[in-house]
């Protein structure tokens, strides 16, 4: 502040100008500093201090000159006057005391006049300033409440259409932090198994995703912890904050997540207590978030279900295209085959290949996995067999060629069990390779039962694998039964498998029937055994009798 003018008229003019600025509320120089400065200017005091009463408590608001050593008289002087060498002036307006002005270096004989002039000049100015500030604060408060209500409304609208979980989490966390004036906040969403699914943090990790499932929070009600930092909140000790507000995000019967904010800011960079309004606001946000998260989850589940349905339809279509539409008519052989796909569409495949000199090739394969990947591998196997069957000189060579073809062209690294047999109807010689497949059965015409065990590892499983080719002779009336594990591993409600023994007995018992009838009998028996229990593997059966 510049030195006081010599002429009283100039001092008075400058004082009024300063008072005008106080009333106008100059943001560059706070009103208390102007009041203290004006008082010194008008009175010629060497030092001045202004004490203000805020919410019943006095505090030093501004000084002029050397700021050291000012203390508020206790009790507050009831009248203007000199105490301990300082002139104390009550600044009042409309009968209310707003401030106390202290001046040093004022001539004692002028003290009463100066007190009267400054009291009359600065009291109303300070009162008007404080009233104006209160109006502004009230206006800000009202606008803040409007903002809270609008935010709740907007959040409801916004979340209703928000199916993107990360965006939804951001929206909830940002608004929660913003409207509670929190310095930091965390939102952790939980998966259906209770583990952390997604987390968002502002200002640090307030809620650890690892610990979020263990937070002990009541349903639908925010928990306030305005205590010291080491007091546990909802069972968890938080070292990263001073005060905390946390709420569970949940729907009836299920916890969806935890929302927490911490350290409500004040204008002076301190930390305030969270209020009941903050707690109510956070609880409302959590309720809205819960509804939106559940909607998003159901939407995702519906999309996933639709995707799986489409995939299954595609896989089923591929499989339908590959399986033979009709069985070949081969002299000397009676054939029957069936494939019962499960809802999940596995990778079963069978085929029959009429070859030169009346020979007949039999193939039954079971690809690992399900759905489109399995169906595509079946398609690759189908191509490989048709491409290689005329090139291979032996059954073992054919299987090795299929293996190489798959390694080269298959899109996925999966393997398959496979049974390939080659029958010469005239001689009854039957050469075969079983690549890790279930044992095929031969029911002899005299009732004897033989099992054709595996002669090597599944195709596609090991590099440089080879397969042993075996041969048996099928006599007239002998029945060959090749199947996939969907038949023997069909389960009933007691989780019991149909089993190889039951299949062997059944095929033996039905062997005298026409093969189509035997085939139906086996499938019916498996179905009766399962009693409607859903099955997870295709059932494929190929029967051939040398006649």
């Amino acid at each position, binding site marked *: 502040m510049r030195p006081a003018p010599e002429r009283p008229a100039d001092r008075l003019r400058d004082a009024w100008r300063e008072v005008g600025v106080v009333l106008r509320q100059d943001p560059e120089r706070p009103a208390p500093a102007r009041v203290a400065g004006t008082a010194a200017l008008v009175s010629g005091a060497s030092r001045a201090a202004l004490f203000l009463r805020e919410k019943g408590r006095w505090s030093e608001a501004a000084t002029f000159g050397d700021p050291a050593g000012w203390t508020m008289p206790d009790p507050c002087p009831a009248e203007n006057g000199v105490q301990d060498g300082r002139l104390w002036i009550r600044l009042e307006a409309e009968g209310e005391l707003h401030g106390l002005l202290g001046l040093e270096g004022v001539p004692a004989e002028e003290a009463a006049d100066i007190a009267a002039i400054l009291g009359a000049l600065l009291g109303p100015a300070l009162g008007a300033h404080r009233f104006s500030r209160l109006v502004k604060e009230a206006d*800000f408060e009202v606008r803040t409440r409007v903002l809270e209500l609008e935010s709740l409304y907007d959040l409801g609208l916004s979340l209703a259409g928000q199916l993107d979980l990360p965006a939804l989490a951001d929206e909830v966390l940002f608004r929660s932090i913003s*409207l509670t*004036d929190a310095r930091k906040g965390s939102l952790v969403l939980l998966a259906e198994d209770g583990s952390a699914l997604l987390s968002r943090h502002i200002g640090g990790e307030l809620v650890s995703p690892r610990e979020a499932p263990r937070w002990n929070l009541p349903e639908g009600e925010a928990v306030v912890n305005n205590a010291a930092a080491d007091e546990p909140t909802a069972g968890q000790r938080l070292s990263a904050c001073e005060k905390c507000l946390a709420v569970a995000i949940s729907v009836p019967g299920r916890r969806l997540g935890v929302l927490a904010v911490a350290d409500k800011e004040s204008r002076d*960079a301190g930390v305030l207590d969270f209020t009941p309004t903050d707690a109510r606001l956070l609880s409302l946000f959590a309720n809205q978030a819960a509804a939106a998260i559940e909607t998003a989850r159901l939407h995702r589940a519906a999309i996933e279900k639709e995707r799986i349905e489409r995939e299954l339809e595609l896989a089923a279509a591929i499989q339908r295209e590959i399986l033979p539409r009709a069985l070949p008519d081969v002299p000397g052989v009676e054939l029957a085959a069936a494939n019962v796909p499960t809802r999940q569409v596995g990778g079963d495949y069978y085929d029959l290949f009429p070859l030169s000199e009346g020979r007949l090739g039999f193939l039954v394969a079971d690809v690992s996995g399900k759905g489109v990947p399995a169906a595509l591998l079946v398609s690759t196997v189908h191509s490989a067999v048709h491409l290689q069957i005329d090139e291979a000189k032996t059954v073992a060579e054919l299987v090795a060629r299929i293996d190489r073809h798959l390694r080269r062209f298959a899109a996925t690294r999966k393997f398959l069990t496979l049974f390939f047999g080659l029958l010469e109807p005239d001689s009854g010689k039957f050469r075969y390779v079983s690549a890790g497949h279930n044992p095929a059965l031969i029911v002899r015409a005299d009732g004897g039962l033989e099992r054709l065990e595996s002669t090597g590892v599944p195709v596609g499983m090991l590099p440089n694998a080879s397969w042993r080719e075996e041969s048996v002779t099928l006599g007239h009336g002998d029945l060959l039964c090749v199947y996939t594990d969907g038949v023997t591993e069909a389960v009933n409600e007691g989780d019991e498998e149909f089993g190889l023994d039951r299949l062997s007995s059944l095929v033996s018992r039905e062997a005298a029937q026409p093969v189509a009838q035997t085939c139906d009998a086996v499938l019916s028996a498996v179905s009766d055994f399962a009693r409607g229990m859903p099955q997870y593997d295709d059932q494929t059966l190929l029967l051939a009798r040398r006649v």
Partner: protein
Amino acid sequence: MSDACKVTAERRGDVAVLWTDGYINNQGGEEIAREAYSQLESGARALVMNLEKTRIVNSIGISILIEVLERVMDRKGVLAFCGLTPTIDKTFRIMGLAQYATIYRTQEEALQAVSPRV
């Protein structure tokens, strides 16, 4: 968006452009005010605040922005905001900031609008 608000500025004649990155709370608001007052002291007549990297503002941050606005108005200057998220845009309108400061969609629009006025 980073957690602690960072403020950068660039002077274009009488206009200062301030970019914020982070939460405008007490700390963020003070950073903005410090930079804004520094620009005003060095002669800037208009401030354009680009908030495209800010997604959260609290009431403390808003009260500081109001103080900055009052100081700009006291100097007969201009304050403009741009790059606001829809939520912050609505917040500024409700809290009264938009009564005396203008909100533009892009920085280009804001610069074009404030330049002839200063």
